[in-house]
Structures are given as C-alpha cells and as structure tokens.
C-alpha cells in the first residue's frame, strides 16, 4: 500500500524510451505496460505536455516518418 502511495508524490522520473513510447501510441502494449508508460510520463512537465499533444494526433502512422 505505502509503496503505491509513494508513486503519487514522486517526481523521480525514469525515462520512457522513444521505442516504447511509439509502441504505446500505436496501441502495441499490454494494459500493464500502458500504465507504466503513463505513470512515468506524468512525472515531468515536458513529458506530461508531450502526452497531451500526442493523444491529439490523428494520423498515427506518420509518427514513423518524422
């Protein structure tokens, strides 16, 4: 219980690599893995803003062609 509670306050960010983020966006992760990505991405303003923006992109295949 207290371990999980600790996550709520934590700002210690561990990075999500781009490969994993891409899989997340393409819906190729399990629910458990999705949760982990979401939790990590929430820990800094940078990644949090990025998550907001990335959800709004309609044409997902284009991620690969940047």
């Amino acid at each position, binding site marked *: 219980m207290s371990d*999980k509670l600790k996550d709520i*306050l934590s*700002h210690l960010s561990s990075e999500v690599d781009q490969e994993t983020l891409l899989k997340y966006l393409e819906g190729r992760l399990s629910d*458990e893995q999705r949760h982990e990505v979401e939790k990590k991405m929430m820990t800094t303003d*940078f990644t949090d803003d*990025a998550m907001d*923006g*990335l959800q709004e*992109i309609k044409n997902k295949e284009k991620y690969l062609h*940047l």
Partner: protein
Amino acid sequence: MLTDDNQWLGILLERYTLLLLGVCMKYLKNEELARDSVQQIFLKAITELQKYRVEYFKSWIYMVAKNHCLMQLRDKPGKNTIEVKDSIAAETDETDKESLLLNEKTYEYMGEALKELNADQQLCVTLFYMEKKSYQQIAEQTGYSMMQVKSHIQNGKRNMRILIEKK
C-alpha cells in the same frame, strides 16, 4: 556543415523527436505546424548549442520548444493568452518535495488526503495508482474520456500534495 559535433547532436535530438512533437501539438493544435516546428526547434538547438554550454539538456530543449510555440502563437492575433511556467525552476523545486517521501508519517497523511479528494479524482487516482490500470481501462470503466481521466489523476495528485504539505 555536418561536423562530428553536429552528428552527435543529431543523435541526441532524435531521441526527443516524439516528445517535441507532442509538446508542439499541445500548444499549436495543428499537426502540420507541429511537425514543421520540430524541425525548426532542431535547427535552433544546433545553432544555440554551438554558442552556449547547456547543463540540463532535457529542461533546456523543452524550454526552447515551448518558447518556439509561444512565438508562433503570438504571431497569430487573438491567440496570445497561454501562460508559460518556468520549467527549470519548477523541476529543481521538486527535489525539496522528494524529501517528503522519506517521512513515514507522509504515508498516513496520504491515505487521509486521498479520502478528502472529490469523487472523480479519488476514483481515478485509486484505479491508476492502487490498481495500476491504464487510462484506457479507467476510461472504459468510468465512462470518462482518456483526457478527463488524465486530468482527474493530475488534479487529484496536485490536491493531495497540497493537502499533505498543509499537515
């Protein structure tokens, strides 16, 4: 113009492509504009990094990206009301708050704080942190949209932190 330094920079920047795209999309709300902006931010970063020494690359590139977006918005009339938070200050500030984690009492307060949240926030925070569900699962279960779920969790977290700091 492609020096060794530039090549390393290119590799470094590439790791941030998706994050930068996300940030630009959040502020500009336009895919094409966001994609162009990522390229412009890369160019700007390469130029600036040749002139200055940057200590915290991640915070710095985020600031460059946000400033770039805000400039774009400023050029368009009627869209200049977005407020920029000072991200670097915010992130160093957080290290103080980490010390809260060392305090055993904090856990007790957190349990109490969780109960004080409004129903939406309490539900979303519990499903996310305690039951380790994804936004999608929570959205399906509660009927909220993914963005609503995300913001209930964010606001819930923020309120809990405020409640704990008061105790």
